[in-house]
């Protein structure tokens, strides 16, 4: 299953790119598992996801919690807590 990943703010800066397409590996079912898997993809990912507790996620542009299921997602985004307004 191909999924588009998007990164914002310092998550984007640490990963070094704004977005990418990935093939979801078997056995990765939740947002939390995806973050753990991403952290193992190299130094820049390890740095971006070193503290997954403070990273927020959205599936198809809706906020989700780390335990949210990925099944069916087309676009998953990771970003720091929002600071707009």
């Amino acid at each position, binding site marked *: 299953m191909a999924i588009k990943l998007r990164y914002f703010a310092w998550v984007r800066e640490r990963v070094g790119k704004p977005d990418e397409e990935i093939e979801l590996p078997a056995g990765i079912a939740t947002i939390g598992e995806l973050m753990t898997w991403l952290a193992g993809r190299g130094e820049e990912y390890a740095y971006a996801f070193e503290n997954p507790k403070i990273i927020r996620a959205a599936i198809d*542009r809706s906020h989700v919690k780390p335990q949210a299921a990925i099944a069916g997602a087309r676009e998953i985004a990771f970003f720091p*807590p929002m600071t*707009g307004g």
Partner: protein
Amino acid sequence: MAAIITVKVQREPFDVSAETAALTRGSTAVGAVVTFTGICRGDENGEPIAALTLEHYPGMAEAEIEGHVAEAAQRWPLIGATVIHRFGRLVPGEDIMMVATASSHRAAAFAAADFLMDYLKTRAPFWKQVEKASGDTGREKIWVEAKADDDAAAARWAKPGRSDQAAE
């Protein structure tokens, strides 16, 4: 009567008075209008800044704000509500965003504007980065950290049994 909802996410400046006029035009039911304007200050945590850059998640930002405004219109008897949020680089003194709410009575207009601000602060996908004014070369850029105060403010509006609505 359905509220007239306007949401814009844009780089360009906005005109609060024109937006407010649009909100009340042609209705003699409006008795109260509350506006909030967020402005780029010249300092962040006491240190002078040269500029603020706002990054956002296109598509999600609009949808998220529209969802909040629709919820406000369900909670309070609004005649209209407008939210405009800018992105890009802004210098001190420039407007960042605005909320305007119109209702027959003031309590609804105040509560809805306050609610929208708290949710925008904690749920709308925007991120602020400041450029410090100190030093004349290679200006230091720092991402603004989310404030616990803002989460606490947003939590005021959470409905029982709907913890998904509160800031996490």
